[in-house]
């Protein structure tokens, strides 16, 4: 067979594939009277190594939408949730967002977990004038680029880390510190901000170690840290790694005060880490034990629906949806420019506390510092700071461990 005919067949096949797919993909599902609903997208890593956090986000989003709709929607319109998986990959995420923009014609997108993915989808959303409500990604840059349609409902890296560093320096008064972080954007930015901040306050950094995502054994790093003998060890990691780090540190006899960023706030973390978590100080922006009625209500509904305690990320997602609700209602219109302005003016009680935004669209939420202590024989997080939420006092870990 002449080769050029092969080529022809090949190219025809490619075109056929693309055209058929285009037809398939542009076919819109005929929903019940499209006028009545507004679509909101959620992008989250539902597969891949970060799927556990995607689950936190997905469950909160479903709950929030049910809550809003059960109370008659927003300005009389019901919300329809469109969920897409990104696996924390930029190319999958951009395609997902593009689909949301063009096919689903979403009004706003809530997401993502990974800052790298949020940054990747941001330009497309901004250019097509869709709101991007960031509930979890903490990279400071996301709200620093001056995008009008971006708002973040959780404390960013800078807020979390500086307040954490200040608390540590002022209350724990270490002379030396070691830092251990995941070798990605989260860990790098965290260590940089924290290290600079505590250095200003006279703390000497005696070790700075990194581990690659997917690492399961941290003993090489921990053993170096142990040799450096710091007063406090600052760690930036997600729950899986953090639990392993604590376990392995104690295993090699590294009993020091650990302190971490907000990646570890969930019930599953306490289950994974067990007693090794005792004494740990870390940042949180939401505690399910909070006495505030809104938080109580959120926790109660979440547990009722999903049979597990909400993680910190779930609260971020919930508040993102609530931000939208209050902003649209206060603007009195769905006009995106007006709603974007309204977001910067609303003030409401969310799961995390009183939520209001600055000009850049960054929520000025409270950052809590908690310590894992034993209350009635059970591990729980006790809020140490700020004064308004304080539940207990800092206990040096030596005293918690007994010996």
């Amino acid at each position, binding site marked *: 067979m002449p080769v050029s005919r092969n080529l022809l*067949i090949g190219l025809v096949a490619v075109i056929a594939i693309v055209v058929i797919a285009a037809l398939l993909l542009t076919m819109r599902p005929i929903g019940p009277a499209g006028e009545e609903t507004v679509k909101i997208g959620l992008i989250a890593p539902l597969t891949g190594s970060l799927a556990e956090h995607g689950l936190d986000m997905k469950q909160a989003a479903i709950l929030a939408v049910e809550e809003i709709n059960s109370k008659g929607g927003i300005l009389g319109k019901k919300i329809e949730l469109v969920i897409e998986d990104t696996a924390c990959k930029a190319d999958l995420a951009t395609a997902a967002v593009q689909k949301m923009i063009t096919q689903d014609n979403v009004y706003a997108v809530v997401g993502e977990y990974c800052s790298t993915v949020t940054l990747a989808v941001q330009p497309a959303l901004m250019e097509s004038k869709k709101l991007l409500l960031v509930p979890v990604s903490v990279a400071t840059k996301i709200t620093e680029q001056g995008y009008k349609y971006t708002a973040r409902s959780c404390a960013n890296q800078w807020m979390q880390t500086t307040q954490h560093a200040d608390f540590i320096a002022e209350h724990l008064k270490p002379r030396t510190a070691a830092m251990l972080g995941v070798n990605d954007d989260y860990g790098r930015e965290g260590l940089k901000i924290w290290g600079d901040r505590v250095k200003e306050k006279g703390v000497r950094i005696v070790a700075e170690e990194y581990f690659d995502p997917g690492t399961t054994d941290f003993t090489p790093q921990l053993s170096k840290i142990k040799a450096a003998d710091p007063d406090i060890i600052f760690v930036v990691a997600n729950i899986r790694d953090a639990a392993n780090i604590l376990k392995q540190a104690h295993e090699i006899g590294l009993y020091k005060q650990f302190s971490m960023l907000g990646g570890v706030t969930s019930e599953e973390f306490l289950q994974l880490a067990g007693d090794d978590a005792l004494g740990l100080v870390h940042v949180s922006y939401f505690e399910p034990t909070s006495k505030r009625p809104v938080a109580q209500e959120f926790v109660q509904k979440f547990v009722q629906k999903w049979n597990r305690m909400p993680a910190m990320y779930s609260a971020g997602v919930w508040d993102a949806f609530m931000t939208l609700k209050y902003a649209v209602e206060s603007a009195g219109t769905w006009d995106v420019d007006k709603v974007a302005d309204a977001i910067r003016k609303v003030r409401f009680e969310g799961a995390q506390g009183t939520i209001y935004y600055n000009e850049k669209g960054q929520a000025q939420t409270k950052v809590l510092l908690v310590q894992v202590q034993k209350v009635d024989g059970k591990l729980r997080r006790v809020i140490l700071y700020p004064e308004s939420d304080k539940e207990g006092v800092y206990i040096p870990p030596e005293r918690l461990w007994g010996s």
Partner: protein
Amino acid sequence: MLGITGDLALRIAKYYALAFILLLPLPLAGDYVTHLAIMIMLYSITAASLDILVGYTGRLSLGHAAFYAIGAYTSTLLSMNLGVSPWVGILAGGMLASLFGLVLGIPSLKLRGPYLAISTLGFGVIVQLMLINLDWLTRGPLGIPGIPPLPGGPLDLRSKFSFYYVALMLTSVAVYTLHMISRSRIGKVLMSIREDEDAALSVGVNVPLFKVLAFIISTFFAGLSGGLYAHYIRYISPAMSALSESISILSMTIIGGFGTLTGPLMGAAMLTILQELLRPYLEYRYLIYGALIVIVMKFFPSGIYGFVQFLSRKVRG
């Protein structure tokens, strides 16, 4: 030139022109389809470039995404730090990628089969770690947002609509060039190496030289498409060089049908679209995706291309 008669070049160009014209109205299907089409085209260049290495020269690479990332970073950094035009940047990205291709190609000359595959895998991981750790240059793991779009004169290449046509043109030219290379004297010499290295040596082929040349050509185009990607998405991060990316590029090449050059185009289209079609199934979709890969590879050793040929033979009787 290079053993391609004007006649052949013209005949193949005609098919590409036809495909080009047929694909012109696609953006009418909306931005989503346009975006996917653009991604398919970028992947097509990369997968086809990998085919030069895998399908034509018989050298397996599990680190091809590294060159894609090198192209993207080069072009981005040049245009953002030195104000170089992105068009020049993309070209420079291709060139730097092929320089790295040379760097990887020479030491891996002695290696075969899985030894080569895992070494290239290692190369990909090392590039990723360098992109993360050399943060003074690459701005570290958070990646680089705010990359300038391609300057298009009167056209605003931020819009998917106009970028589509630029991409279509560039992809046609790039894939056509790759096609010509595969049909050229170089392509035939590379194939002779794939078929039998000793026999190629015995008729005077400088096997090491051409193996390295295959790396250079292949990585040049991967770098180009990486640069295009950077100025299209306007955000890049070290994750571009991840093993999973290399594997998805390799999947396109192999499942599409390696050693055919048209196969990888089909692979890029099929796998990208499949990912989209399976979207509604959220967590469940990789069950189907993985199963389909297993089925295609078990029953169609020469990939989708082989399957299409099989079908067309059936149709013609």
